[in-house]
């Protein structure tokens, strides 16, 4: 027995729904516990319950205050040093992942501090390590003590900095070594750095060259040949996480002044729990009104579209949990707007269906025509929204566009919302209608 296309689609939809339910639902449902599967996809661990990440405004988070050591700076430079510190820390956090971070400068007389509020951070130690370390990269020639006898090994006494440092970098990224596939960091120099690196490697063939991170040697390879193309690999005994963090730090640049963590404390939600509760309730009532409206207006079709709207909500939660998306109020706005657009696809199709019925077509024909013709406007309208979303999300991190977490968070939820709503509004609704809907013809005699 072979299945028809709608039936195949239905099976696919059921599979997606079950998977989303598995991710979205809490493990413990009172009497019933959902068994957890012991499967991992990359960083997605299905054996544990996945929490939804909530923003500072909804759940609160960790506040870290960094104190700066400005003693080496002139008074007039202190203000700008603080601002550039804020920029670098902001860049590091942005590169660390999309999350809605709030960074502000605190200043009182001769104290220059930075307050960083991180939402839903579970590993605050890692976060602090990421934002608080200076990450200055320096290439240097090791200096060895004179060997007195042939049996004694030369010991390392210090380093003589070479004319090449982190500021000559163009880009750093995680790579895996070819021989043992251990994580390492590949670096690419800018034009200036490429020239310097070529010079250093040309003059130093056969000699060791050390790479120092914050003053400590992490690797000390021997130069085997001149490297004219400006590429190098920093290998050390990195774990994958360490390699990633290092790449992030190198990309974001070194901190302009030394800092230390002054305090670290948990902060309450800026909007307050009560406000969030109220908003959720209001959103729920709003949704209920939408569903009622759809059913009153479109009858059975409205009911089916409410089912796909519910599935839309479910899939979105599942995606938010897996990506993960930090949920905050701007994000919820993006979500609500896309709910509106998800319903819109259905309204477009149903209005079209009514028209085709009025034109005297068989309901089956009218249904297929409605989906086909409404698609044109749905396609262009949603493409326009995705364009706006992409410009706001700024995936290539262009400097003349926003890189702030809040705006990006909004854009991400908007894009996800549109894509999911296209799936539920078109494919899910269509399949459900084809299988479960029986229409009436206006007049069979014509």
């Amino acid at each position, binding site marked *: 027995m072979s299945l028809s296309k709608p039936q195949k689609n239905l099976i696919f939809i059921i599979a997606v729904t079950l998977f989303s339910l598995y991710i979205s639902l809490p493990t413990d449902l009172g009497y019933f516990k959902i068994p957890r599967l012991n499967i991992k996809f990359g960083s997605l661990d299905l054996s544990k319950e996945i929490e939804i990440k909530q923003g500072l405004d909804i759940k609160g988070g960790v506040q870290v205050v960094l104190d700066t050591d400005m003693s080496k700076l002139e008074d007039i430079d202190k203000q700008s040093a603080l601002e550039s510190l804020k920029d670098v820390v902001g860049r590091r956090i942005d590169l660390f992942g999309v999350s809605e971070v709030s960074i502000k400068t605190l200043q009182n007389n001769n104290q220059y501090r930075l307050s960083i509020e991180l939402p839903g951070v579970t590993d605050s130690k890692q976060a602090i390590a990421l934002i608080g370390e200076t990450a200055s990269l320096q290439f240097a020639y090791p200096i060895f003590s004179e060997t007195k006898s042939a049996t004694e090994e030369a010991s390392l006494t210090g380093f003589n900095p070479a004319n090449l440092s982190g500021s000559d970098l163009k880009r750093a990224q995680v790579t895996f070594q070819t021989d043992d596939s251990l994580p390492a960091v590949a670096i690419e120099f800018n034009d200036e750095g490429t020239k310097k690196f070529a010079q250093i490697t040309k003059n130093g063939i056969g000699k060791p060259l050390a790479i120092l991170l914050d003053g400590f040697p992490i690797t000390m390879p021997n130069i085997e040949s001149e490297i004219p193309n400006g590429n190098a690999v920093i290998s050390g005994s990195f774990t994958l996480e360490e390699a990633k963090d290092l790449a992030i730090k190198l990309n974001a640049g070194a901190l302009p002044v030394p800092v230390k963590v002054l305090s670290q404390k948990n902060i309450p939600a800026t909007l307050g729990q009560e406000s969030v509760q109220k908003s959720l309730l209001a959103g729920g009532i709003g949704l209920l009104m939408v569903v009622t409206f759809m059913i009153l*207006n479109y009858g059975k079709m409205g009911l089916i579209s409410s089912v796909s709207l519910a599935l839309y909500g479910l899939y979105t939660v599942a995606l938010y949990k897996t990506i993960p998306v930090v949920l905050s109020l701007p994000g919820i706005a993006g979500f609500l707007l896309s709910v509106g657009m998800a319903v819109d696809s259905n309204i477009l199709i149903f209005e079209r269906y009514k028209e085709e019925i009025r034109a005297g077509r068989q309901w089956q024909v009218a249904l297929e025509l409605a989906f086909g013709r409404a698609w044109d406007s749905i396609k262009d309208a949603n493409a326009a929204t995705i364009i706006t979303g992409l410009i706001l999300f700024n995936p290539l991190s262009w400097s003349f566009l926003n890189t702030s977490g809040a705006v990006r968070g909004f854009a991400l939820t908007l894009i996800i919302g549109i894509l999911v709503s296209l799936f539920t509004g078109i494919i899910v609704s269509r399949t459900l209608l084809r299988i479960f809907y029986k229409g009436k013809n206006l007049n069979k005699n014509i």
Partner: protein
Amino acid sequence: MNWMKYRPLYFLISSLVIIPGIYSLITFGFKLSIEFTGGTQAEFILPDTQKQNLLLALSTQNPQVVSESDSQFTLKMSETTEQEIEQITQKLGTVSGQVKLQSFEVIGPVLGQETLKKTGNALLISSLVLLIYISFAFKQFKYGLSAVLAMLHDTLVLLGSFSLLGQFAGVEVDLLFVTAVLTILSFSVHDTIVVYDRIRELSHKVKNVSYENLVNQAVSETIVRSLNNSLTIIFMLIAMFLMGGESTKYFSLALLVGTVTGTYSSTFTAAPLLVVWNKLFEKK
């Protein structure tokens, strides 16, 4: 129905809203929230019972709670001097229990002017890309231009009304407002394209009809879906405006204003603009 006959009326309604808005934007600007301006952060040691009194005494400075525990209270507020705070705490201290100012700091803005500028850049680039995209999708420049003009119309209505609200009701513009503007931008274009799509479809199907009548027919055929769709969103927003928490109230209002103007503009700005363009440049 002959919708396009009343073109001047639609443009008049739009200008009645937009002109005061632009005037207010130029003369008053926005009342920016502490996220943009920076301000003061102060930590107090005080008995629990005094917290409400302190918030009340500082109410003109728009205080927000940063953190609190039994005897500790950290607030951020618009720019206030140390002396001003000392005066307030001394006054409070005499009523019931001592309020002590533990620390005082000037905080910089979370979102610099840079955020606003970059968001502005994003708006500009979006407008350009949409102009090109819509012009290509509908194969005529007038569609792209009119859709983008309608989008700017909605943005101006929203910006202007919040500038007026800031001046006369003290409503602040914060990050949530910025996202509301971005949301409305997408909504406006989305809604306009649906109307345009119908015009495109009709122009293939119906021949020998003046462009104006074509637009009229398209508007008549799409207005039900346009209203139905906006109603679903408006239901949601009214619920959030009336029942949502205090902090999201004006956010919901911004979205509400935007949805209404976005719906209005698709039919009463974007479509008439096409007709105007046609009359001016494509005389048959």
